[in-house]
């Protein structure tokens, strides 16, 4: 009896010691723990809860089962927003990443003025979205925008661009490819490739394209994975440019998932319906991330450390 008591005392003693040992760490971590619980865990669960309710903020939420989800496939605007987003994700993201990769390679070529080129190349990424949206709007304005003026000068027929409900989504896809994305991460990746690998390849008589496909590309796969994940997740949330330039128009031609969700929630105050969309977005993103991670074992090269 005494012995068990003593052992119990010992145990609480060690536990107390353990708590004392880890207390500072958890104090440091406390903002994160609170933040995750309040701004992530609770909202994700609450969104699921609301997605089964009809809720307009003013009146209490009313349980309606799967009705929000059942409504989605029949919603013409939702279908269009989803279709536009999938186009943006499947064409815009790979295109922009390819562009970003090319940019990084060019900025990594040892030429005179490299530092200056790098500085200049960083500038477009710093221009605020609103300013960029304004200038792109000027460039692709149907009447006498820059593109149409150039077309006219070249004797080509002018286009309606953002005034054309079918062409408008391609304007946004084209814009993101024109800018490129992920250049900095690619550049950092290129700089992290050990020089010895190139030297060894050169000694073995590898031409530049051998070096590219057998050294550079495999060593870049972690950067590609990172940029691909970030790019895809970002693209599913694509919001600001269409919102600023066309507000989703004309006739929904440039309405993307993010905008439709925003409007459902904050213009029509259908919090339940919007939450259902948010959960669809969540599930789609989770599946995409899962599939990419699953496949990454096959194509991403990790250096043994």
């Amino acid at each position, binding site marked *: 009896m005494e012995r068990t008591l003593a052992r119990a005392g010992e145990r609480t003693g060690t536990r107390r010691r353990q708590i004392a040992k880890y207390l500072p*760490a958890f104090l*440091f971590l406390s903002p994160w723990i609170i933040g995750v619980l309040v701004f992530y865990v609770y909202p994700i669960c609450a969104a699921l809860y609301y997605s089964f309710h009809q809720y307009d903020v003013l009146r209490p939420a009313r349980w309606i089962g799967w009705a929000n989800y059942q409504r989605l496939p029949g919603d013409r605007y939702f279908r269009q927003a989803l279709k536009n987003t999938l186009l943006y994700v499947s064409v815009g993201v790979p295109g922009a990443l390819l562009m970003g990769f090319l940019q990084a390679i060019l900025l990594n*070529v040892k030429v005179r003025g490299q530092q200056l080129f790098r500085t200049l190349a960083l500038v477009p990424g710093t221009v*605020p979205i609103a300013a960029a949206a304004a200038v792109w709007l*000027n460039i692709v304005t149907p009447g006498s925008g820059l593109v149409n003026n150039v077309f006219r000068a070249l004797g080509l027929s002018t286009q309606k661009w953002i005034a054309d409900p079918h062409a408008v989504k391609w304007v946004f896809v084209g814009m993101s490819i024109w800018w490129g994305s992920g250049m900095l991460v690619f550049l950092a990746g290129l700089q992290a490739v050990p020089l010895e690998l190139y030297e060894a390849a050169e000694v073995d008589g590898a031409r*530049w394209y051998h070096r590219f496909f057998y050294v550079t590309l495999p060593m870049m796969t972690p950067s590609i994975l990172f940029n691909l994940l970030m790019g895809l997740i970002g693209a599913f949330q694509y919001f600001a440019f269409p919102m600023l330039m066309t507000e989703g128009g004309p006739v929904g031609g440039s309405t993307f998932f993010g905008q439709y969700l925003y409007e459902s929630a904050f213009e029509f105050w259908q919090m339940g319906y919007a939450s259902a969309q948010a959960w669809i977005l969540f599930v789609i993103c989770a599946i995409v991330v899962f599939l990419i991670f699953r496949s990454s074992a096959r194509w991403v090269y990790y250096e043994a450390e």
Partner: protein
Amino acid sequence: MSTTMTGDTVSTSVGPRFRLGRKASGRVTNALAYLCILIFLTMALLPMAWMLSTALQTEDQIRISAPVQWIPKPATLENFVTGWKADSNWLLYFRNNVYWALVSSVGLVFSSTLVGYAFARMQFPGREALMLLNIALMLLPGQVTMIPRFLIWARVDLVGTWWPVTIPFFLLASPYYVFLMRQFLRTIPMELSDAARIDGCNEFGIFWRIVIPLTKPAIAVLVAGHITWCWNALLTSLIYLKDNQHRQLILALRGFIGERARVGWGPLMAMSVLVALPVIVVYFFMQRYFIQAFILSGMKG
């Protein structure tokens, strides 16, 4: 060619050398590289150049410009004046944006250094699992949590104040920055902490006096990145800062874009230049930190 070569050796930094060829073929490939870089930089900078050029032209020049006029003749600052006067509150919008960017930066630096420090340099059970959760949250679209977050703030009746857009940064606004900070803090030698601990320094003392002073480059990157984010936070501004008193530049410029027929392209471009200027200046001074930061935020670990 020889000058180029010496230039190369002088400016050698880390990184693979795409020394495209040598001697005879070297010149051709070099010229080709320059050509490609030139094309790329033209593409990248063309919209900005167009913005600046339009901002400096008179309304007549903009309208007539057939086919394309690049050099404003004569250059005029008239558009800046017209644009500024078209909305009497521009000064307020700039102040609002700066205020928000500064306060939330303080919060972001506070939370991400503390938390990053814990993840990078302290031992506690479940550390790896929680880091994995953090990485998963990096991949979570903001729109998933957007509505309940709004409802929380609506319930305590704080929508339309600064609270919803500042408080979260003191807790956890961006798992990405936590990750960035953790990657950076891991590179600071542990021996420094150990030495300070032997000298009787407690954990917070180590954090504050030893580690934070060495973290300035990462903090600079974080703040610069966050300022840009504040300038671009359309969704947040639309949800929480819509009223005139809290309006951010992005919403003000959006208003201008919507009224472009009335405002005119010249003043719109002029105000775009003004809105962009602070961020570009910040980046100009911070740029040397950036590549370093992105190497760290890289994929290992």
